[in-house]
């Protein structure tokens, strides 16, 4: 299975949201990383056929997805950002409704719904109204509905937004479990979502594909650029300099700052092992401040 995104450009009026975005995706988890407004959701919506691109095309196994129409959507599972659900539906009824939308046989739908509720740890909540669910429970139900038709392409748009760390870890484990034999595109600006599970990381900035790289290689690129430095209380000038600060830690002997800089930022700076957060800051640090 191959999803080919070729020269996708999208304008909202005069605003350029995606700029000649091209990539080829195969089985595995792809982490789409970028700040707010980078074009992640726009790309997701185009892949999910909810938006038409201004230019460019998307192909699945060599066939244009617009022409494939319903056949393509049959292979798609989509969890949008902040997914909406019907408060007065029970969790199971909601899954059965989505099953009907996805063309599942009635008998199969019931079994599949039960399986998925169990998988996302909502089996005991099947009869409860969605209106009573927490944010984490809704997200889990969201992933369950996305998997109903056993999709070949799974699109998850900021699936962990608003979840606590425990829920995020649970979510990550579910994604790892289901990512076999599927193309999974996970868009996020929370690096820990993809740090451990992404086969490749796609860095997107201002609508452009900045980089497509293995997570390990991205970390390698930052080797020799991440520093830890002890600063004095009086030294308040670091915010003014062109250094990216990824962390500030108050210790007994003073304040340590973690800096991303190609050059050693001072005598007492010590090299550190790069982390994924450092990648985000390195590529999007100025964008985030905006």
């Amino acid at each position, binding site marked *: 299975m191959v999803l080919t995104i070729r020269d996708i450009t999208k304008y909202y009026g005069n605003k350029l949201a995606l700029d000649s975005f091209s990539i080829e995706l195969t089985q595995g988890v792809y982490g789409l990383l970028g700040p707010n407004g980078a074009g992640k959701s726009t790309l997701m919506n185009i892949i999910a056929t909810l938006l038409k691109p201004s230019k460019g095309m998307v192909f699945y196994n060599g066939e244009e997805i617009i022409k494939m129409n319903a056949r393509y959507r049959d292979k798609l599972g989509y969890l949008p950002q902040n997914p909406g659900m019907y408060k007065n539906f029970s969790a199971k009824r909601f899954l059965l409704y989505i099953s009907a*939308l996805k063309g599942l046989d009635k008998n199969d739908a019931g079994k599949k719904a039960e399986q998925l509720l169990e998988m996302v740890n909502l089996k005991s909540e099947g009869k409860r109204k969605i209106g009573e669910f927490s944010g984490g429970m809704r997200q889990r139900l969201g992933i369950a509905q996305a998997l109903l038709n056993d999709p070949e392409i799974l699109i998850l748009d900021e699936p962990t937004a608003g979840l606590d760390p425990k829920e995020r870890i649970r979510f990550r484990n579910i994604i790892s479990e289901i990512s076999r034999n599927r193309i999974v595109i996970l868009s996020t600006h929370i690096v820990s979502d993809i740090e451990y599970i992404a086969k490749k990381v796609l860095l997107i900035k201002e609508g452009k594909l900045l980089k497509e790289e293995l997570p390990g290689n991205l970390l390698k690129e930052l080797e020799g650029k991440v520093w830890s430095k002890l600063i004095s209380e009086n030294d308040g000038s670091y915010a003014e300099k062109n250094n990216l600060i990824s962390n500030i830690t108050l210790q007994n002997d003073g304040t340590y700052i973690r800096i991303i800089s190609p050059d050693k930022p001072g005598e007492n700076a010590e090299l550190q092992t790069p982390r994924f957060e450092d990648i985000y800051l390195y590529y999007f640090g100025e964008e985030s401040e905006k």
Partner: protein
Amino acid sequence: MISLILYELYKIIKQRVLLILILIFLIFNVVQLFLVRDIDAFIGMDTSNVFKKFEGSVTDAKANWVLEEKTKYDKLLGNDNLREKMQKAKEEADSLSIDNPSEMETVNSNDTADLPGKYSLKIAYDYIIICRLDYEINYIRNWEKQNISLKKLIERNIDRYKGKPEYKYEYLKWNLYKNNVNSIKSPTLFYNTGWDKLYKYISNDLLVLLLILVAFSTVFSNEYALGTDRIIRSSIHGKSSTVTAKFAASFIYALVIYAVFIIIDLVFFKIYYDMPGWHNSLQSIQTFSNSPFAFSIGNYLVILLLTKLLGLMMFGVIILFLSSAFKTSYMPLFIGGIMILIPVLLKSRMPDLEINTLLKFMPDSNIFPQSFFTRYDVYNIFNIPVSYMVICISVTLLAAIVCSIGTYKFFNNAR
């Protein structure tokens, strides 16, 4: 598809606001129906039974008998003072303060030697019934005379325009009128108050319209508001099939609501008025004296109900379109309300305005369709006389078709 339709129906009827409104409107409808009950029977006037004795075509024998009785009562009650007292007594009876009007409330006449003894309220009621009979007989006789005159007028106009190509439309128009008028049977005498009230009640009923407006406004816009449209539209049946299912579910809801309200109306009217004479000609009811249609009263009921239902469905399609175009349900609700309210208000309060000529063809005319059937109303469309009803229905149907197509496009391509 059936599953999808059932889920869409579930989404509609699970709205708490709607369920509450349905309950309130049902109660309100029953209260309204109580107010249109047969007052005559309620206060003890035996109008329907008296009319039964005179049912059928108007004969000289019936007319003369009624006239004689009326003259007797006029003479008996010729005293103005007494007439006032009788009127007052009847008004008091109407205020429902009397349990058995035939035994209570007597009126003494001390003003004339021609009026012996006491007179019960029953005399007043009998007099009123005789007056109504007389009125109906006069109406039917006048109708028959006018019908003869009308036929002569039609023939004259047909002769006038016959063989003149430049007057093709006028010729066709009068010929059409002739065909209609020749099929009409004479009105029949019977107690038709129930039918008259029923038709006015059904024709002016707003409750079902409001329930359709409220429900349909949310069908698409709720999906946008909740964000569920993105999940829906990314699934295999999430585009055109979902729109079709929403249409189907909406129509089922509208049909059920309409049927429930109509059945309640018909049951109440049947209980109050018994509703005899459904086979008589529509022109037996004075509201339809000028109707060019040869319907029976019963046929007209079916046609009225179907026309109104069609009007409600077509209006519903327009509301569904608006729902697909807006992210909240307030705009479709507001625009739908304006579409009905403004023409109705303008036509009733300012009937002489020029714009009313155009507003005649707005969707509200299909929803309150009595005016389609009360007179001969045709328009020149490429030299062919086309009835007001056909034009009205066609305009709204066209709007509904365009809106249907628009709904598919809007929902499938919504951002």
